[in-house]
């Protein structure tokens, strides 16, 4: 009998980590389903199914043990992040395309679990927004309560896509209005539009973001994630948005608005904290998180896309090997040396 020490092991596993991440998403999902519409639950189911099928197929092709890797939960996390970042009324095939691309190309072609240099969910988002920009930009108006039956028909392609159902996202509304008429419109005036904006950010969406914040804090408390990335992400985003807001409050929205808009909270706690594609050293995590927060702001405010989190995270993924190399911590007994 051969078994190497240690004989005692902590009760930890990859599937437990992934399950906790999924659990932490629940408050955000609940707020989403309640305030924006239950269609998100359908999208979550579609994405999960597509992810598991794609994962199983790839594991089979690669000759890996199916049960072991299917139950690790990593495909599910990817699927849920895709569903939560895609428009909730996107056609089913769009979500499936994104999910399959994420699992097959972004994950398994790079070597599977633990080997992907890019966050698979964000690769899916980037691919789809570049390939299907119109569909990826159709977000439902929060104020419009569409019956679930009708939402299902839209997702499954049984009913025509009605432009009337969709509206500008809070970030889009702000950007478009400010671009169209820079002199006469100001942020405070725009935010008064209660169809789109709520108490401090997008109507409804602000509470979804708050849900992610709650789940993220729970993940931190459970030590699934460290504080470095979320804090650095939020601090960088708040710093740059705050600086510009102070400089010209009529033209730039407040840090609070930016923190609770778009994918900022989801990105800070669930996407940028992906250990596989993120930085691993403490200082590296700070740089990684801050870079992602900064880029997300620049892209969402000055770029052409509705939000910048996906591209920000992907760009920072690119820098990870360099960041890690340059931020290796000093080891025990070496602290005094330069």
């Amino acid at each position: 009998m051969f078994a190497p020490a240690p004989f005692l092991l902590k009760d930890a596993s990859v599937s437990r980590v992934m399950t906790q991440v999924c659990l932490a998403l629940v408050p955000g999902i609940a707020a989403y389903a309640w305030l924006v519409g239950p269609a998100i639950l359908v999208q979550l189911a579609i994405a999960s199914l597509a992810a598991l099928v794609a994962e199983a197929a790839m594991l089979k092709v690669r000759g890996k043990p199916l049960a072991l890797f299917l139950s690790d939960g990593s495909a599910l996390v990817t699927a849920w992040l895709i569903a939560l970042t895609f428009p909730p009324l996107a056609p089913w095939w769009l979500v499936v395309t994104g999910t399959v691309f994420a699992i097959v190309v972004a994950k398994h072609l790079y070597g599977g679990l633990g080997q992907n240099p890019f966050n698979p969910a964000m690769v899916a988002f980037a691919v789809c927004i570049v390939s299907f920009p119109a569909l990826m930009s159709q977000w439902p108006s929060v104020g419009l309560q569409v019956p679930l039956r009708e939402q299902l028909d839209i997702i499954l392609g049984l009913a025509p896509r009605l432009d009337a159902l969709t509206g500008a996202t809070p970030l889009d509304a702000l950007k478009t209005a400010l671009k169209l008429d820079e002199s006469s419109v100001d942020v405070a005036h725009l935010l008064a539009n209660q169809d789109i904006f709520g108490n401090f950010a997008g109507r409804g969406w602000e509470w979804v973001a708050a849900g992610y914040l709650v789940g993220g804090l729970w993940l931190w408390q459970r030590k699934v994630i460290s504080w470095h990335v979320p804090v650095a992400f939020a601090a960088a985003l708040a710093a740059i948005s705050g600086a510009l807001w102070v400089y010209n409050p009529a033209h730039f929205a407040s840090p609070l608005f930016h923190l609770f808009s778009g994918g900022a909270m989801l990105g800070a706690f669930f996407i940028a904290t992906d250990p596989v594609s993120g930085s691993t050293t403490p200082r590296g995590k700070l740089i990684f998180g801050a870079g992602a927060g900064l880029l997300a702001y620049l892209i969402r405010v000055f770029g052409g896309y509705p939000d910048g989190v996906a591209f920000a995270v992907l760009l920072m993924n690119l820098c990870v090997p360099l960041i890690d190399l340059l931020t290796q911590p000093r080891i025990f007994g070496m602290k005094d040396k330069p």
Partner: protein
Amino acid sequence: MLASLFRFKGGVKPPTHKAESTGRPIAPAPLPSRLVVPLHQSIGGTPKPVVAAGDRVLKGQLIGEADGWISAAVHAPTSGTVREIAMHVQPHPSGLDALCVVIEPDGKDEWIERQPVDYRLLPPEEVRERLQQAGVVGLGGAVFPTHGKLNPSKTVPMEELVINGAECEPFITCDDLLMRERAEEVVRGIAIFRDLLQPNKVLIGIEDNKPEAAAAMRAAVDALGEPFFVIQVPTLYPAGGAKQLIRVLTGKEVPAAKRSTDLGVQCFNVATAYTAWRAIAHGEPVVSRLVTVTGNVHEPRNYEVLIGTPMDELLKLATPHPDTDGIIMGGPMMGFLVPDIHVPVVKATNCLIAHNDRLFPPKAPEMPCIRCGSCAEACPHELQPFEMYWFARAKNFGKTQEYAIFDCIECGCCSYVCPSRIPLVQYFRFAKSEIWAREREKNAADGAKDRFEFKQFREDREKAEKAEKLAKAAAAQAAKKAAEAAAAAAAGDAAPATEAPVAVGAAEDPKKAAVAAAMARAKAQREAAQPKNMDAVTHEQEREMAAIDARREAAGIADAPPAAAEKKAD
């Protein structure tokens, strides 16, 4: 008390499982049926056997003599007869054999004549030598000969003497019970170390999950009036690692490349101090030690066990459950399953844990690393285990060294926390042994290269010398030809008998002449290559010699050239 403790980064808190074996006092283990005493029980040289099969030995009698300074003597654990000196399986993961003295006890347990001394009357060298002769080694597990650590440094003043009673590994309680029951002798042993090393202060570190031990030690320190500090340190594995305990108590971090004495600290285990006192004050060499017998057994307990006791016999005392399927020597974090249950208890054996799958569930299958960084957070040496794992797996050993793999103390914290169940420590051991093997190979290759290069150099030098000689010879030959010509002219009448026939012969047969010329050349060469006394001859001497040669030839004496012989045949 001291102002404050320091902390080390990382560490883990596995379930301690210590309460099981602390409920009963230390019990002496009965004499086993036979004792297998390995000769090599400490770091350093392997002691040489000084007994032979058939010899009767007494308890405490020397059976293995220390080989060199870093080596410690080995003694007969009881009285009896030496049955054989032979190779037996060792309590080591490799399962390799080593030379052991096998003793059949006679049941009398009869001591040699013990010679207690008052060490304060002895010069320090003699105290150290006595410790070596008594086989006192570090009983915390490293078994480094203790006397080798008791030389005060000449350059760095000794600031702190750290005494390790932390005992951080789960299940193990032998140091705990030792301090509870024999605190006074432990403190007296520490005083020996203190007197030899002359530190500024003595710090005794005990994990705070052993309040009874700490209280007993405090009482003993007070009773003996020693100025030692008994300090309870937070229970956090591996607080009992020497470097971690030194960090916690003194704030000093000992890097891998340095010894603690370079920073003015020395560290000993409490059990080592105890055996040192027994050795000096009672004249008892190390023939037994305390062993915790625990795990999957009915009655976990600490035993005073003779070195060489077969582990299965010891385990039986605690009545193992029938589903026991192996014995772990050491703790569950750094111990190993012994290759054979009959292997003997040695000086490094602090604990036996009966293994079964209920207590230690088989590991779930290994998953890929997800770079979660838990291992880096748990590492008490602040390394990046997942990076080292990555490179060890890829056999990129140079990179593992860049990530300081030799700073790894193999405590197992990384493996303990890994959610992917990767046996990280195994990878690091593999990488380390590969690096050592490669270094050996490289040293061997470097040696071979040096030898080859020297051989080439030597051959080149010889060739150059030969070429020089040949050039000299050519010059000598030219000189000789000139001399011969002169000699022929001068000695025309001195040897007409020879000169004329050669000339005639040459005229008669050009072939013969060529042969004769070649012979002459060869002879000239031979002469040129000859002793140095030919080098500086004057023309007259040469002429003389030529004349002599000619005469000798004429007379047919000695090395007459074949040409001359032929000529005679004419």
